[in-house]
Structure formats: structure tokens, C-alpha cells
């Protein structure tokens, strides 16, 4: 079953604009990770944010995590055509004092950046 849900399912923007994708989940997590996937390079890890963190940056990427709302967002600033891909959030569950290592992915957001 899919724990995470990304919103929107598809996003189309112009180069230079910012892109924001959201992810909601249902159960307690140890961390949340964002991945990018395109046909040429498979799944690429972008950023990991732990449950006790609220915001993380990596280059043009900014991720926020709100554990009270069970939601996360990924912001890509100054987008480029090369950012065109599917973006997935994935959660590592935490239950009974144990984190499980395995990731539960959402269905993804398809981002298209037009030159």
C-alpha cells in the first residue's frame, strides 16, 4: 500500500520558475526522503530529512517537514529543463521504538519544465 500521497500529480512550469510539490503521509516516521526519477537515470536520491528536523536545503532544493500535519514539501527554485522528471517522496516508518529501513513511496509528481 502507498503511505505517501504527492500533490499535484502533474506540474507544468516555465524555466526559471519555482516548483513546489507536496507529500502527505499517515503514520509516524523516522525520516522522509525525496527521490527523482527519469527514464535515463533511474531513481536518484535528492534529500533526507529526519523526523526531528523542520527544514533542509541542498543547492536549489528546499524541503520542509511538518510532523504535526504529517506533510512535507519539496521546493525547486529557478527550475531548469533538466529538472523534468517524476519526483517521489518516501517515508521510513517508525513504530514501537523501531525504524524499519524499508521505504514506502507515494505515487509521485510528474514535473515538466518548458525551456
Amino acid at each position, binding site marked *: 500500500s502507498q503511505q505517501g500521497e504527492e500533490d499535484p500529480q502533474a506540474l507544468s512550469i516555465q524555466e526559471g520558475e519555482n516548483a513546489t510539490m507536496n507529500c502527505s503521509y499517515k503514520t509516524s516516521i523516522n525520516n522522509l526522503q525525496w527521490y527523482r526519477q527519469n527514464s535515463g537515470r533511474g*531513481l536518484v536520491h535528492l534529500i533526507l530529512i529526519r523526523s526531528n528536523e523542520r527544514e533542509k536545503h541542498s543547492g536549489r532544493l528546499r524541503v520542509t517537514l511538518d510532523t504535526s500535519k504529517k506533510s512535507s514539501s519539496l521546493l525547486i527554485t529557478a527550475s531548469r529543463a533538466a529538472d523534468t522528471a517524476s519526483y517521489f517522496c518516501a517515508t521510513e516508518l517508525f513504530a514501537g521504538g523501531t525504524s524499519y*529501513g524499508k521505504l514506502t513511496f507515494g*505515487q509521485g509528481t510528474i514535473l515538466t519544465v518548458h525551456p
Partner: protein
Amino acid sequence: GAGVSQTPSNKVTEKGKYVELRCDPISGHTALYWYRQSLGQGPEFLIYFQGTGAADDSGLPNDRFFAVRPEGSVSTLKIQRTERGDSAVYLCASSLSGNSYEQYFGPGTRLTVT
């Protein structure tokens, strides 16, 4: 350095046949994961190895699916009596250790059951 590799990249088999999919993780990574991805969906967890042992096989859909990692490095996912519903991209990932480490994914094996 070398990433996660998977072979074959594509596999076409007939319904009822047996297939083996191989994963070579990043050297030194003790944790290895198998996922399955259907078209338009996110990857779905199958099994997780820590070292040689399967720490969590709760995602295997039924007893036709089995995976091994005998020496704590290379892993093989085995599917018996394949069905058309098994058609998907099978992804392998490795991480430095289980829990709270980013996972590095291989390019996947596209399995088509005709």
C-alpha cells in the same frame, strides 16, 4: 565509484517460467533492498537484507517470490511460475546500513511476462 548494478536490464519470459534477477550493491553497503515498480506508480517494497539475512520480507507478494544474499553482497531475486501480473520494473537499492540512511538505487530490471 561504482553504483548499484542490476542484471539483466530487460527480461522477457513466458508465463509459468522461472526467472532470476541479480543485484550488485555498492561495495561496503550492508543493507540491500528490493522494490517493484509498476507503470505510473511509486516503487513498492519487497524485501530488505541486513548482511546475509532477510530482516524484513513482508513485501513479498506470495511464496512464488524468494530472494537470497548468501555472502552479504550480491543478491538474487527469484520468481517461480511467473504470471503476467509480475510484469514490472524490479529495483534494487543499497545503503550503508539499515535505518536512516539514504538508499542508492540501481537502474532496474524490466520484467515482461508474456
